[in-house]
């Protein structure tokens, strides 16, 4: 009871944090018909700045990290990415009003990772003083790529079975396509530069100090976007909305549980567990959609993009993130 109250308080305070406040602000002004626009060039640059910041930080801490500590979390990240897709394949995609390939694509997008949700989690955790392994964001591709690949493979298998075709799906082009996307490129470049070079001065003098502020602008865009996509979502089966509301939390909690296992086995920190849960609970907004459009062309993007952008991301940030933090503080630290 008291715990629930505590969560509620944390949850409501969260709404006053800049991260969530700008997200909601974006939804509200879009709903009111505002013509405010953050230009595409600025939006793209902000995404670059955030992922470069996260990557540099990750790379610099991998330098000092014990590589063995990263193995189990990385393995779990892969398992989670694949698990989410399989879960969606055998729940959402089997519903009668849902076209199978649309359901698989949606599961793929929710298995993949959102850079902006990750950035939001880092900002909130740092402002609350929660410690975490700074290499944890490097788990991103371990979850993201397997999820997208598996979704595309499952969809192809399904469609081929329907057609009676026997061609094999080639995995490497999908992996390459993912790695070359702008989000993963920036993150991995940041990791490489952080690991191999000495970017401390510009990290501390440029990328890090601008991080929170730029995130607030990005959250505004995500909010406006969430509202703009609602119309698209309304045109597809209601099940997508239900899935989009529940899946982030289910995925996050599964990841939380696995993270806890890593905590017990290899001392993965509570903050690291929260980040793992956030990665799992997030759904890709930048690089996932084009990869899926190319990989599962017959799937309807209004279903998966609408579900992810309009409901999935707001739920992941507004409910998931405070939930995992509260759980970590209550169950582990407390």
């Amino acid at each position: 009871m008291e715990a629930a109250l505590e969560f509620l308080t944390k949850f409501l305070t969260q709404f006053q944090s800049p991260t969530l406040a700008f997200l909601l602000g974006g939804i509200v002004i879009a709903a009111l018909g505002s013509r405010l626009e953050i230009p595409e060039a600025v939006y793209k640059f902000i995404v670059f700045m955030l992922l470069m910041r996260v990557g540099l930080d990750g790379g610099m801490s991998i330098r000092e990290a014990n590589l063995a500590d990263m193995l189990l979390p990385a393995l779990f990240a892969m398992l989670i990415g694949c698990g989410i897709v399989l879960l969606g394949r055998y729940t959402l995609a089997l519903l009668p009003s849902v076209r199978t390939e649309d359901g698989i694509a949606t599961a793929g997008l929710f298995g993949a990772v959102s850079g902006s949700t990750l950035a939001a989690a880092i900002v909130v955790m740092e402002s609350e003083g929660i410690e975490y392994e700074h290499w944890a964001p490097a788990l991103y591709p371990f979850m993201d790529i397997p999820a997208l690949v598996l979704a595309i493979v499952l969809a192809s298998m399904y469609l081929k079975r329907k057609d009676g075709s026997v061609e094999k799906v080639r995995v490497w082009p999908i992996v390459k396509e993912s790695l070359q996307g702008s989000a993963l490129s920036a993150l991995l470049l940041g990791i490489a530069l952080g690991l191999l070079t000495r970017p401390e001065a510009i990290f501390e003098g440029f990328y890090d100090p601008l991080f929170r502020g730029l995130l607030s602008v990005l959250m505004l865009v995500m909010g406006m976007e969430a509202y703009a996509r609602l119309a698209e979502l309304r045109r597809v089966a209601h099940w997508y909305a239900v899935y989009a509301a529940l899946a982030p939390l289910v995925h996050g909690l599964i990841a939380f549980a696995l993270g806890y296992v890593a905590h017990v086995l290899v001392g993965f920190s509570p903050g690291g567990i929260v980040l793992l849960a956030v990665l799992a609970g997030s759904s890709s907004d930048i690089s996932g959609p084009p990869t899926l459009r190319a990989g599962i062309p017959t799937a309807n993007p209004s279903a998966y993009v609408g579900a992810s952008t309009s409901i999935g991301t707001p739920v992941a940030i507004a409910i998931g993130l405070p939930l995992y933090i509260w759980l970590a503080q209550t169950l582990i630290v407390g």
Partner: protein
Amino acid sequence: MTRQATKLVIITEQLLLRDIARIVESSGATGYTVTPANGKGSRNLRSSGQPTASGAFANVKVEVITASEALARRIADEIAGKYFDNFSGIAYLDQVDVLHAKHL
């Protein structure tokens, strides 16, 4: 020089640009021109999850001028056959008189 030629215009999703450019280049056409575009058609798929709130141009208009109408039609058929079931797209021809061009 004035030379009758066919202009093929394809309006489709930005996402497909790389593939379409490859098809055009390997078709034997002597060149092409791309302009940013936005549009509304029969379906309103958004190609990329790219923010609509940031005024991005999500479509492209690709123009290919060819001396032979048959070549223009072949290019259009290949692109439409490959993509237009699942992606937004329209293709049309226009007759033009080319005045100056390095090749054609």
